[in-house]
């Protein structure tokens, strides 16, 4: 193993001379290097995390007390809409694409992504799409305010912003599809010859499946919003009963995209968790093949459960029952994943560095979000839960202390590999504890609010909801402020961190768990110009 590594160090040194990065700022515009593009994606996602987070702070400030204090109800609706769109399409998805760019070639022993120029293009399309979306904030009539689901007829009441929002969805869709094609092509074509599919790291597996999800769903979303566009400007009536259409049709199309879309954000999350937990448990991932099958099952199920977002829309009883049963099934493969992570930790020799802490918090808090998801799958009970803060609590548990926490974990886990510097463990753990405590103060009371009868997407509320809302807002402010620590840590680590010299494997015995740890730290600009012959694989 060490011989292989040394040989590569030599190769990389040689490559560095041949094709180093472009000099100056132009490097970041024209780069086709998977590591540069990964960095761009991650930094962009981090910036959007703070933009979307600022919107969340505005929402929580308005909801701090009953009564209207800071914003107009319409602007409040714009904030909930834009917060969701920015976080989903600007922060979480790009962050996982960034991780895919950085890690997949290094994990499968490939020199770069399969389609490097397209890679550059999908990043800049993403930036254009998000900027176009953000520009709607300054347009006459304000940004879209009909919720991120863009339901007609309400969304058709949007002012000048509507076509811009729709075109930005098109751009984001094209960007995602190109990114997904690139990832799938890379995984299927560029693996080191010694790596069969069933020896791929879990992160690569989850992204392979996510890639197919994206290719399948983004055109559906693009189609739905295009129908909105023609309904508004070209006199079609897809969603207008007066012309023979049906507004509920939009919801079916949207959620056929929307449900797999939420799994686009959670499957790579699973992949990173399955990568980190074994390293700190010092034990192989338990049930590798069942993890692969569970991921594939979840992805398949995601296509046949969409109308559970629409239990109260007025479906025939057969539809209600079918979507209830199908949705309940998701609990089975998801349960398998949680049990497998637990079994991976069982009888390990665990240490609790920041990435592990975030990963454990992910398993626990994601499971909480999964439990409320199971509760909501029971259709008659969802007639109470639907469109309340109970739902808000549910999906934030599956997104914030799940996807976002795992993105933080990934940052702490791989930053030393990327930069060659160690982050400040004390500050990292402080960030972890502040985030974990405040995220629960923020979202746990929202379960109570929803059950007590508070609808979602309202800028003002009845007095009996005042106390939990104030507690939730306080949690939100602490959570928001705590993320500045993460920003500081990222900058500090890039600049040199603790000054401690990190080894190639960074974490004890990490080289047993993945190819990326056999490379030098920091990782050279070009890696695996020749494919590795020995694949560290601890599960079979």
């Amino acid at each position: 193993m060490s011989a292989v590594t040394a040989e590569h160090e030599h190769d990389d040194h040689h490559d560095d001379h041949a094709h180093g990065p472009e000099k100056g700022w132009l490097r970041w515009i024209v780069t086709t290097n998977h590591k540069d593009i990964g960095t761009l994606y991650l930094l962009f996602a981090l910036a959007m995390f703070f933009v979307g987070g600022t919107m969340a702070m505005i929402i929580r400030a308005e909801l701090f007390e009953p009564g209207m204090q800071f914003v107009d109800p319409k602007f409040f609706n714009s904030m909930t809409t834009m917060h969701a769109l920015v976080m989903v399409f600007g922060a979480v998805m790009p962050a996982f694409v960034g991780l895919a760019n950085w890690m997949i070639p290094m994990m499968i022993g490939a020199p770069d992504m399969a389609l490097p120029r397209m890679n550059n293009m999908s990043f800049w399309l993403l930036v254009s799409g998000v900027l176009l979306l953000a520009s709607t904030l300054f347009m006459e009539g304000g940004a879209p305010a009909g919720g991120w689901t863009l339901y007609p007829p309400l969304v058709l009441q949007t002012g000048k912003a509507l076509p811009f929002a729709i075109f930005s969805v098109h751009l984001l869709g094209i960007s995602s599809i190109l990114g997904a094609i690139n990832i799938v092509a890379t995984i299927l074509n560029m693996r080191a010859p010694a790596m069969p599919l069933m020896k791929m790291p879990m992160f690569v597996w989850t992204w392979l499946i996510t890639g197919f999800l994206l290719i399948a769903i983004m055109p559906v979303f693009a189609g739905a919003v295009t129908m909105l566009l023609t309904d508004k400007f070209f006199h079609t009536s897809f969603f207008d009963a007066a012309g023979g259409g049906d507004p509920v049709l939009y919801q079916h199309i949207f959620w056929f995209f929307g449900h797999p879309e939420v799994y686009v954000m959670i499957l790579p999350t699973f992949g990173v968790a399955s990568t980190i937990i074994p390293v700190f448990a010092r034990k192989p991932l338990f049930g590798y093949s069942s993890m692969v099958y569970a991921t594939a099952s979840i992805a398949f199920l995601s296509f046949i459960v969409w109308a559970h977002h629409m239990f109260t829309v007025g479906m025939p009883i057969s539809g209600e029952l079918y979507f209830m049963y199908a949705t309940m099934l998701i609990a089975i493969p998801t349960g398998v994943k949680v049990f497998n992570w637990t079994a991976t930790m069982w009888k390990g020799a665990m240490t609790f560095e920041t990435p592990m802490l975030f990963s454990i918090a992910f398993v626990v808090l994601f499971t909480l979000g999964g439990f409320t998801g199971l509760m909501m799958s029971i259709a008659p009970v969802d007639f109470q839960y639907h469109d309340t803060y109970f739902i808000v609590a549910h999906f934030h548990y599956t997104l914030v202390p799940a996807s976002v926490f795992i993105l933080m974990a990934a940052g702490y886990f791989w930053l030393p590999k990327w930069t060659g510097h160690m982050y400040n463990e004390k500050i990292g753990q402080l960030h972890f504890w502040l985030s974990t405590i405040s995220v629960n103060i923020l979202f746990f009371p929202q379960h109570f609010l929803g059950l007590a009868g508070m609808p979602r997407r309202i800028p003002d509320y009845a007095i009996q909801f005042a106390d939990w809302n104030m507690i939730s807002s306080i949690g939100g402010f602490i959570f928001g402020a705590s993320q500045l620590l993460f920003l500081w840590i990222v900058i500090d680590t890039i600049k040199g961190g603790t000054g401690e010299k990190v080894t190639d494997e960074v974490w004890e015995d990490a080289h047993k768990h993945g190819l990326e740890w056999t490379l030098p730290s920091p990782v050279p600009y070009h890696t695996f110009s020749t494919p590795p012959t020995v694949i560290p694989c601890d599960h079979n």
Partner: protein
Amino acid sequence: MKKTKQLFAGATLATFGLQSAYADYALNLMQGVTKVSNDIYDLHMLILWVCVFIGIAVFGTMFYSMYHHRKSRGHQAANFHENTTVEIIWTIIPTIILVAMAIPATKTMIELDNVQNSDMSIKVTGKQWYWDYEYLGTGVHFESHLDAASEKAHRDGSDPHSVPHYLLSVDRPLVVPVGKKIRFVFTSADVIHSWWVPDLGWKKDANPGFINEAWTSVDKPGTYRGQCTELCGRDHGFMPIVVIAMEQGDYDNWVKTTLAKQEEKPDLSDLSREQLMANGAAVYLKNCVSCHQIDGAGAPGDYPALRGSAKVNAGVDPLIGFLQAGTSKMPSFAKLKDNELAAVITYIRNAPELGNKVGDEIQPKAITPVYDDE
């Protein structure tokens, strides 16, 4: 078993010091006042306890492992990574639990769906931003808006705590008899709304151009409050629902007086300027304020300002015609009675808070119909 669960729940809550009489710290779903809402509550508690027990098992194992299997305690890592038997076990057990859950859930779902054999029907139409109730076959038909006190408080920044049932109170509640199976039909005049009273156990979307059905049968008299639960635009948070359930006799009386009031011809005699302005302000607060705002400034890009508007400040007759006919953007207000129209026109032309000062007063008799709503 049920007792044990309740005891356990009580003990848990008491531990956290949260078991108080305050509704402010409500933690759980309300049981509601119908059989279906109680069935739904039981299902909710059942699935909640299933989750709690699975959670205790999984998290218990995980935390046991985190405490005992740590490197700092000198634990040596094992190297197992596969066991088909346990994989099969933890696939089969959840499947059995789910099937067991699906059976009562299916029963309740079928019950919830059965709108047959109802005693009466009420048509509910969602509108931006109020509800319209029509008691089919009786002639009772009225609008239900957010009450004036809440409407004013959320707009002028006064203390919401001083308003009784802030944002959960309406000018005209829906009145229903207890013990009768009431069928609701839902539709909408504009965007999608959703009608939810938690105590009845369900919500149902009101879709424009389509009809949805649901039913309820309220067990005990009382006042039950709810809200619109589908984002429907600017004032989505300000279109509550109040249902008053009363004994059949009281309900019959209510129908009688309501019908009598509906028949009453409006009083078209001349009013003093103060009365016109006061009545106009009330009509404005109910019908106009959502779009044109409390200061008449409108919403740039969405709704025009009345403040300094040429249309408002010019001749009265075109203004009357405009209000009665409506436009593609503004609904017709032919539904307003002549005395209401006269008052609100006087108000918008002269209210200092709207910044207009034409200096005239329009009397009810001055209103000539463009469209008659009869």
